[in-house]
């Protein structure tokens, strides 16, 4: 009979250890399926079960405590044709609990064998998540404080479509492993065994006793009907194949010449909902249409439609270096929320600097020039204040021009959005003298 067992590395476990039985059963299952070693990856966790991969002539990956399922996931996603079998102990299963839950819920076509011997055997018999509260362990009384975890119950609750439980001595172990591996989705087999070195003697655990204990539990036997669904990688590929590739960066050829050389810093201070970040972007795009270098940084809280919204823009005839805007040339003051957070910049403003302010927005005293716009009287909703302020800035002609701003709009918007933005600008430029309420 053929075998995938590694003749150079025969299994070595403590005398009487159940792991030995599982190694041989797994081999029989793989042989029964006609698997070649190159078709199989055995991914192991830490602990005595972590030795499994070396006993097989298959692909092998042995990793960190509780993380075996994560490597298995990466492998299977990358090589869907590979049969991926993950081996963990009850120790690793507890450490990697979140990975276990995620794998059950994800339903990627991998098989997990949990070699459940109710303790951390390799490290000296400490209690694990499956240790009985009445057991005696190397952890003192700690296992008495927490109930033991039913792996199968958790797996079913977490969405695993295949859940099975069997004794390491079970006659049908190879068949049950085979069925789990053949299942097209995530499959779990909870394999109970004894740990003669660290647990069984101290607790007088016998295989027969474990069998009786297992028999007393509600039966589990493979397919969990209510959890059956599409396999994850298959579904992932179907959905991702429908996506179009993301477009590259916007390519902007300079078509205008800049009104200035050197660097100009613009600080847009507003509130959520005023499209301040979009205005910052439009300003950048407009400047790029005149061959300027630009940078933009936005600052806003986690809340949507509440709180400040700030955009810091640097326009420069040479590549932008320092992106801080501590001494802005132009400040948009469109809402109290934004102004409050950057009050200190106003005292640095000089007479040649410009503040474009919405009427009613209070700003600290400063030496700069101010243009105040009565947006409310003009019936311009708050979400357009930042855009109209850009038009006001263009009208000043010192940083950007109307043509540059229109070019920026065309780079940023299309269809209805572009039409709407353009009609706002048309409206502004046709009645521009009525916008300004004061100019100080």
């Amino acid at each position: 009979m053929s075998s995938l067992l590694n003749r150079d590395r025969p299994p070595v476990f403590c005398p009487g250890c159940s792991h030995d039985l599982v190694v041989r059963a797994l081999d029989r299952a793989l042989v029964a399926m006609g698997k070649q070693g190159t078709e199989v990856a055995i991914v192991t966790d830490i602990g005595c079960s972590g030795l499994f991969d070396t006993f097989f002539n298959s692909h092998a990956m042995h990793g960190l405590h509780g993380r075996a399922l994560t490597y298995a996931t990466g492998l299977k996603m990358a090589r869907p044709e590979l049969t991926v079998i993950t081996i963990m102990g009850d120790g690793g299963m507890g450490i990697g609990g979140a990975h276990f839950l995620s794998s059950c819920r994800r339903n990627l076509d991998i098989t997990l064998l949990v070699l459940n011997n109710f303790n951390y055997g390799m490290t000296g018999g400490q209690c694990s998540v499956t240790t009985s509260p009445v057991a005696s362990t190397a952890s003192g009384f700690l296992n008495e404080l927490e109930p033991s975890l039913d792996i199968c119950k958790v797996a079913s609750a977490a969405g695993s479509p295949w859940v099975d439980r069997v004794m390491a001595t079970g006659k049908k172990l190879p068949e049950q492993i085979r069925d789990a591996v053949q299942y097209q989705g995530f499959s779990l087999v909870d394999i109970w065994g004894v740990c003669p070195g660290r647990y069984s003697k101290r607790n007088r655990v016998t295989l027969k006793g474990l069998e009786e204990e297992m028999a007393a539990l509600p039966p589990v036997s493979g397919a969990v009907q209510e959890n059956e669904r599409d396999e994850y990688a298959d579904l992932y590929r179907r959905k991702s194949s429908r996506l179009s590739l993301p477009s590259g960066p916007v390519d902007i050829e300079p078509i205008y010449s800049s009104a200035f050389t050197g660097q100009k810093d613009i600080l847009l201070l507003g509130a959520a909902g005023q499209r301040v970040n979009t205005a910052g972007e439009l300003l950048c795009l407009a400047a790029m249409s005149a061959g300027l270098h630009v940078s933009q940084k936005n600052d806003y809280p986690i809340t949507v439609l509440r709180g400040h919204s700030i955009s810091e823009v640097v326009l420069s005839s040479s590549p932008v270096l320092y992106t801080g805007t501590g001494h802005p040339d132009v400040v948009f003051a469109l809402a109290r929320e934004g102004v409050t957070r950057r009050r200190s910049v106003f005292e640095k403003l000089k007479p040649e600097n410009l503040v474009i302010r919405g009427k009613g927005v209070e700003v600290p005293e400063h030496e700069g020039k101010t243009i105040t716009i009565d947006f409310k009287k003009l019936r311009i909703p708050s979400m357009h204040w930042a855009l109209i302020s850009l038009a006001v800035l263009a009208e000043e002609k010192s940083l950007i021009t109307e043509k540059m701003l229109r070019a920026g709009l065309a780079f940023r918007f299309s269809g209805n959005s572009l039409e709407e933005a353009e009609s706002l600008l048309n409206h502004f430029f046709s009645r521009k003298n009525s916008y300004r309420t004061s100019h100080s």
Partner: protein
Amino acid sequence: MGFCLGASMAGLKAMTATSGPGISLYSEQISFAIGGEIPLVIVDVQRLGPSTGSATKGADGDIQFLRWSNSGGLPVIVLAPVDVTDCYTLTVRAFNLSERFRCPVFLASNKETAMTRESVDLVSLQIPSVVNRNHCPPDREFLPFGPGGEKDVPYFLPLGGDRLVRQTSSTHDEYGYITGDTETIARGIRRMENKLLGAINSLSLFEYDRDDSADTLLIVYGVTARAARVAVQRIRDAGGAVSLLILKTLFPVPEKTIQRCIADAERVMVIEMNLGQYVREIERLAGSKPVEFHGRMDGKLISPAAMCEVMGL
């Protein structure tokens, strides 16, 4: 990280990005990537720490963490982008280095770089050509952890291919079997150390803007370099003199490069967005030359004006 390690072992190129709280969680898997010689790119968009720190304000507080976050303390490659252009080119370089040396490569970015949008001249962008990992020739025995095509770097074969591959996070021999043999262990550790330290000259990236008449050398990296360029220009415009060294490879420390630049100066100034991390490397290389430090770690960029002030130039 686990997904990336699995996918990379299957032969794909893999990258993951995080910030300080995430890189802390990556630590055990970083060690696996180093010990298992698994190619991988890890982007750390550093934000102000400690712990969950400030969401989201910039800092360069993870520099020594990136170097020492692996158990065992083996060398790692850390590259630091200055701007968006660097983000393009250094990411390609990071992949190339990870493939060539079979190791994780870090990009020490910063919120101020990753969350800043800027114009890039795509035409003049010099993107390095792509390097792929060295596969074991079909007529050679495959030793997943033995010497390969390039000195001290093992050949690679994908896990799941037509030749068997063994990968392990535990101390192993050249075949990938766990071993306790101290000679074998020492040989493997030394090889992994040598493969990076021995190639230091070919992976050290930097910009040195020397002023022959300058006594002061300013050393910076990352986003701080942008303000440093402005500060240096201001000092020179005002008739002063200063040299500037911008490091883009932070680890392995480009010792010869740094020492050569320090030799040109009488006084060294290191400015970082932290409490003083990389300055330790400079101090140990500076010998008797005085090394001064200025740091800021409150989520704000260090301004050119502050730099001029602390340098007194």
